[in-house]
């Protein structure tokens, strides 16, 4: 029973398309995050939500929009995909804002061609 699950695990799409990555956690955590890992393996925070409220919104293009329908779900929608968006996207959750029980999903490898 996966704690933080992301779908899909792999996504190949053409430039200009719109795509979504879904994330769900069954840990009862209050806070969820999206991280991006680039081709050099560098991990950087993109967004975080606490109880459906946006807490962190790092400098990412407006084409990226997170959506949290409830505290167990945090989806990432990307419009007008570009080659530079190719990366691994990780969802994570934590018990609270202080980061207890930080748990990562297995990642979504997005390839834009």
């Amino acid at each position, binding site marked *: 029973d996966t704690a933080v699950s992301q779908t899909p695990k792999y996504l190949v799409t053409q430039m200009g398309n719109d795509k979504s990555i879904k994330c769900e956690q069954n840990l009862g955590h209050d806070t969820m*995050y999206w991280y991006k890992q680039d081709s050099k*393996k560098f991990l950087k925070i993109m967004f975080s939500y606490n109880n459906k409220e946006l807490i962190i919104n790092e400098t990412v293009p407006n084409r990226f929009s997170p959506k949290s329908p409830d505290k167990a779900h945090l989806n990432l929608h990307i419009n007008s995909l570009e080659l530079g968006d190719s990366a*691994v996207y990780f969802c994570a959750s*934590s018990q609270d804002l202080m*980061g207890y029980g930080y748990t990562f999903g*297995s990642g979504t490898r997005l390839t834009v061609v």
Partner: protein
Amino acid sequence: AQTVTQSQPEMSVQEAETVTLSCTYDTSESNYYLFWYKQPPSRQMILVIRQEAYKQQNATENRFSVNFQKAAKSFSLKISDSQLGDTAMYFCAFSNGNSGYALNFGKGTSLLVTP
């Protein structure tokens, strides 16, 4: 802004030996958390060890231990009795309230354990 520096892009160690991965960070805050994460080729992010800055005692988890030097802003990871399964990327990370407790990662150290 907080920065995390891992000065060793790649390291190699023989099975059963001990290896130390270095990490330094920069912050003006007194309350924060430090982490080491392991990312094997499967790409899963696995928490190795966590340290609260207010705790002077170094955290340990089985073969993994840290040397936390708060004044020097240093947080190194020691892996004892290295095993082939320890081959992975290792990331040092920092979090505190100023960053909304998001993890601020270093660039990683690629560790290869050889037979």
